[in-house]
């Protein structure tokens, strides 16, 4: 149980984090972590289906849940007088969940609609999904969190139940409360509601390591779209030892130098100066249970190709390695890190999110400030070193979107003169 006090407003965020995400799934049941998340709203012995949400709503609250590769988490945002209600309901569904076949069947249809909406009808999401399945041969990050459609179609109620019985136990969960509360009240209520729940030992987790990549991988994804797009992913390390690691911090600063603000290199060079791309991005997240990736992507400007964009992105990497980064660039990234740390305190939700995530992926829950200090210590030489070490072709997967425009006969009619229409 972790509590973060913030007394600016009489509100609380309660979260329950389970250390079980799509990376814990096995072949043929991809998507079960996320499906179980949906089932958690489908009732318990004492709270009928849908009643959880209605009860929180009547209490003036908002609630939802999210599933990632690494974890599944549930949250409520409420007036601070409703702490007990949220904990009681969360404890109840941690061990008394119903598994009704008709609810499962209907909810699976909802999840398949969610997949259509997020992935199947979204060309960039398709590229990303197929890229992950190419980047990783063995590591479970290769499967989409929402699951392959075929696995969703064949998933059974028993699969969801087995998942629940395996991972939903107090000793695999973290309760986080942030906001206008006293820690002692949370600990007392937490003990009252969760303390009596039976604990089971979750199965041992096997270390899963991706075999080293040796040689560039390339894929082409055809999807219905107008503009092409290119995405690149390099294998990179995640943060494991907050105090002693330095490479993840250097990679995070590198990402900020390429794409932390409008002043960063990709925007300045590729979008504004060279006009080779309409957008260009870099992204690196060091906080994962599994391995990390360093991403680059871009949409070509009119008259340019994905090859032009890839060449320009690679040129930026070459410049990083050969010429390094300037002190001004380094200072800008660090100023943003400092400011972002202050801005984050304006959101109680974000504070709870951060604590729960760190704890669940296996880092000290209170290491945020230390991480910021370590980011401030990154040197120009370290940035150059990690670029040289990790942003190399043997580590790289390139995915290209080959856009398939709408068939000519099926093109929606254009709106003449900016859409003038006089049907009423």
């Amino acid at each position, binding site marked *: 149980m972790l509590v973060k006090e913030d007394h600016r407003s009489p509100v609380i965020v309660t979260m329950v984090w389970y250390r079980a995400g799509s990376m814990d799934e096995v072949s043929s049941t991809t998507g079960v972590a996320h499906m179980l998340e949906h089932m958690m709203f489908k009732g318990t012995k004492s709270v009928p289906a849908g009643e959880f*949400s209605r009860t929180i709503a009547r209490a003036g*609250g908002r609630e939802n849940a999210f599933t990632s590769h690494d974890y599944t988490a549930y949250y409520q945002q409420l007036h601070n007088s409703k702490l007990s209600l949220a904990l009681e309901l969360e404890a109840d569904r941690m061990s008394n969940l119903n598994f009704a076949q008709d609810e499962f069947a209907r909810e699976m249809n*909802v999840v398949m609609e969610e997949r259509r909406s997020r992935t199947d009808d979204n060309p960039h999401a398709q590229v990303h999904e197929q890229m992950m399945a190419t980047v990783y041969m063995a590591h479970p990050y290769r499967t989409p969190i929402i699951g392959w459609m075929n696995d969703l179609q064949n998933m059974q109620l028993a699969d969801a139940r087995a998942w629940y019985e395996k991972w939903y136990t107090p000793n695999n969960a973290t309760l986080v409360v942030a906001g206008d509360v006293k820690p002692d009240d949370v600990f007392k209520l937490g003990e009252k509601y969760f303390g009596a729940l039976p604990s089971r030992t979750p199965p041992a987790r096997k270390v899963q390591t991706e075999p080293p990549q040796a040689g560039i991988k390339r894929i082409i994804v055809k999807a219905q779209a*107008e503009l092409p797009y290119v995405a690149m992913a390099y294998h990179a390390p995640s943060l494991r030892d907050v105090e002693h690691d330095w490479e993840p911090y250097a990679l995070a600063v590198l990402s900020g130098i390429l794409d932390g603000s*409008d002043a960063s290199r990709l925007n300045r060079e590729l979008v*504004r100066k060279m006009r080779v791309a309409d957008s260009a991005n870099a992204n690196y997240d060091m906080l994962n249970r599994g391995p990390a990736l360093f991403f680059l992507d871009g949409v070509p400007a009119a008259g340019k190709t994905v090859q032009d964009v890839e060449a320009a992105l690679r040129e930026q990497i070459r410049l990083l390695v050969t010429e390094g980064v300037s002190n001004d660039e380094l200072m800008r990234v660090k100023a943003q890190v400092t400011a972002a740390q202050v801005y984050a305190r304006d959101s109680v939700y974000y504070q709870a999110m951060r604590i729960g995530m760190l704890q669940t992926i296996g880092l000290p829950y209170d290491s945020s400030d230390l991480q910021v200090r370590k980011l401030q210590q990154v040197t120009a030489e370290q940035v150059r070193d990690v670029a040289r070490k990790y942003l190399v072709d043997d580590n790289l997967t390139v995915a290209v979107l080959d856009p398939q425009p709408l068939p000519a006969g099926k093109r929606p009619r254009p709106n003449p003169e900016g859409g003038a229409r006089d049907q009423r």
Partner: protein
Amino acid sequence: MTSASQYLFKGLAGLCLAAACTAHATLPIQEWQTANGARVLFVETHDLPMFDLAVDFPAGASRDLRDKSGLASLTLELMRSGAGDMSEGEIAERLASIGADMSERFDLDRAGYGLRSLSSARERDESLKILATVLQKPTFPQPILEREQQRTLAALKEAESRPEVLAEREFKHLVYGQHPYSQRGAGELNTVAKLQRDDVVNFYRQHYVADHATVSIIGDLTRKEASAIAELLTVGLPSKSQRVALLPPVQQLKSAQLSRIPHPATQAHILIGQPGIKRLDPDYFALFLGNQVLGGGGFASRLNEEIRQKRGYAYSAYSYFNPLALEGPFQIALQTKSEQAEQALKVAQDTLANFVAEGPTQQELDAAKQNIIGGFALRIDSNKKIQDYLAIIGFYRLPLTYLDDFPVKIEKLTLEQVKDAWRRRIYPDRMVTVIVAGTEAH
């Protein structure tokens, strides 16, 4: 339940200095005008060493002439692309080097810039100086205008292929006809291509006017500092001494209209709706409360219950009002696999028709009230959220007690009042329906 409002603002009550607080306001909003007529709303809070502010103008998409659609948005974007003696790159670098976020704010009514910065002197002074220059001395460089035109045209071309974009555009055209609210911010392929630098300069001169501006500020500043900031941000802007030009009135729909657009996506995109409510509408609270039951209350609302939970037809199904200066849209939206578009549409239509005919039950109404009143603190639990409300209260001339009144007004509404408002204002038999879907659907 009215006691709720007494502790809503607990976190801010300590900030309220006797001299600075108006008698009626629980949230201590201070209001004044700058020397050249801009309206300022300010909440002082020193909990965090930062501040949030925005300067908004009546210069949103509805101010575009039809054959220059996209101009308002382009003008706003270009203001940060060169100002005073700063280039686009210098503006970006100077903001980044102090960790400040300066962002465009744009909708049908409003256009402006927001700023989030640390409140320490160096960061504060530098970020405000940059924002003031962007607002008052944009240079609109020709090459950047051409670049941004090209980027917008490419994005519009991509958007033409997206079912959700096609659905939304058709919806706006059918609901608003020739009214400026039918226009989208980014403009159209054939209008954006023709925009000239003179258009941008003229639009800026006409619309970025001090006495039409609203400055909303919250954070680690004293009243004296906030006052100086509001002056700094508006001092170089002209004053017009005339009221903001009125938009033409929104016409109600005369008959039902159905539009089908073929598209190969796996999901059908379905929109149903009509012109909705104004910000200062006497029915605002009754319609808002009712919508909480119909489709605005998340998992606890009827559309979600009927379409998602009972039938598994959709991941998302909801309804909303977008209250604007004039009647912004009322819309029901859902996506479902193309093969079952007709069934899902029928459920949505029946749910709406039944809701308008019968209204919510007393139990549903009570639950919705409890949600809004009991959860009101969540609407104002961060500086950012309060700043958003300050901007709305200032721009739409809502009373300064708006946030105090909100739960009280909701509490007082009766079942009959909610039913009556929905029957008078919402017409299920003459709505616009748009279905973007594969041919299997029909």
